[in-house]
């Protein structure tokens, strides 16, 4: 399983600051809703493809994968609008969604997670005033991206182990027999991960703030 992830290339799009790219994405979304016409949606889609494939030189498969993920949505939008209003509106709404999904894919494929996380941390900066550490929020985002594939893999392994011993439950029962052992593994892993974070200095004083002069520290 792969989440849309960074595709390294030496391109202008890659070099653009993450904040600027996210701003462009937001601006595109706003513009497409303020300008609800079929040519606007089609033009945006063409623009996104040019930026993604020609300028950023992303492999077409990266974008195709994202498009495939939303294909049923697109089809449903098209059909529902064609039946309730007209085909042109359906095409417009579907193209608009596709353009935005692909634009988001271009941003994620050209931006390192650490840069994205830095933007999230900056946006969460004001929370410092109420005692929240923005770096912690950034870590949570990064860890979610890191561990989703790990969990999927563990779930697959549990299902494979059960199948190897003749169990091949379906439906709700399958959910139950997979979820319980997965939960046990997740809790064990959470403990291991927290130890690893500790060992790598997760509870060190955050950078940029002055270190407390006294070496005396309480153990966590």
């Amino acid at each position, binding site marked *: 399983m792969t989440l849309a992830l960074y595709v390294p290339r030496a391109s202008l799009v890659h070099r653009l600051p993450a904040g600027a790219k996210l701003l462009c994405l937001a601006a595109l979304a706003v513009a497409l809703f303020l300008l609800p016409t079929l040519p606007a949606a089609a033009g945006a889609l063409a623009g996104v493809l040019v930026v993604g494939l020609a300028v950023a030189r992303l492999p077409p498969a990266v974008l195709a994968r994202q498009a495939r993920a939303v294909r049923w949505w697109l089809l449903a939008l098209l059909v529902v609008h064609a039946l309730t209003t007209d085909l042109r509106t359906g095409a417009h709404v579907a193209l608009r969604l596709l353009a935005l999904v692909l634009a988001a894919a271009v941003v994620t494929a050209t931006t390192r997670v650490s840069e994205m996380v830095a933007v999230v941390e900056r946006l969460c900066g004001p929370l410092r005033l109420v005692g929240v550490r923005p770096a912690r929020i950034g870590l949570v985002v990064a860890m979610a991206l890191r561990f989703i594939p790990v969990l999927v893999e563990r779930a697959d392994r549990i299902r494979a182990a059960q199948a190897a011993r003749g169990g091949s439950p379906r439906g709700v029962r399958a959910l139950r027999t997979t979820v319980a052992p997965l939960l046990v593994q997740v809790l064990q892993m959470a403990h291991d991960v927290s*130890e690893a974070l500790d060992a790598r200095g997760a509870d060190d004083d955050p950078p940029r703030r002055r270190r407390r002069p006294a070496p005396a520290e309480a*153990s966590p």
Partner: protein
Amino acid sequence: MRFRRPGTAGAPAAADVADPGRGIELRGVGHRYGERVVLDGIDLTLTEARVGVVGANGSGKSTFARLLNGLVVPTSGSVTVDGLDTRTQVRAVRRRVGFVFQDPDAQIVHPTVAEDVAYGLENQGVPPAERAARVAEVLERYGLAGHADHPAHLLSGGQKQLLAIAGVLVMRPARIVFDEPTTLLDLVNARRVAGLIAGLEQQVVVVTHQLDLLDGFDRVLVVDGGRVVEDASPGPAVAAYRALMAGR
């Protein structure tokens, strides 16, 4: 000998008063989880460059290893690293003592290789330019340079463990504790990790069930029932361990 100058490999210590020559000292150390006594009566001074720890499952090896960098604090006695107490100066201790776990998946916390290696340096407040240089250097040294931007979950098991080790080495700890670093690896990768460990300039403490990993070590401890029952060079220590296990 290498272990005489571990301070040179260490990160610039905070406001601690480390005495690099002292090594890891355990004085009357015991540990219990609730009622259960897991370690008892341990008195040791570890200054050798290569220290191995062997013992049966559940004998207390991992608990022992975790004591050495303050992941576990003893319920009796004290553990100090270069004079720093793991109970009261745990952050300074962890900067001096790196820790590598058995399961690399639990140690990699960022989605891509370079980002994960940089993580510990961010915690230390290393400025971005220096961080990037140090990450690149470590990735190069451990054959991961071509994978800098790869998603960590697409690496092989051996590469993941190398990444986990790189993430610790980049922080330049003066000493490193490994808890079964090769258990989940195939023969080729286990050999690579063993070779890597052998080449480290730091003091190294390795807990392992793979006895050939201990070739060339200076000192091997055999742990049984929470006590150190043998403390010798690898030959006699491994022989004692085999004899102990044969009697079971």
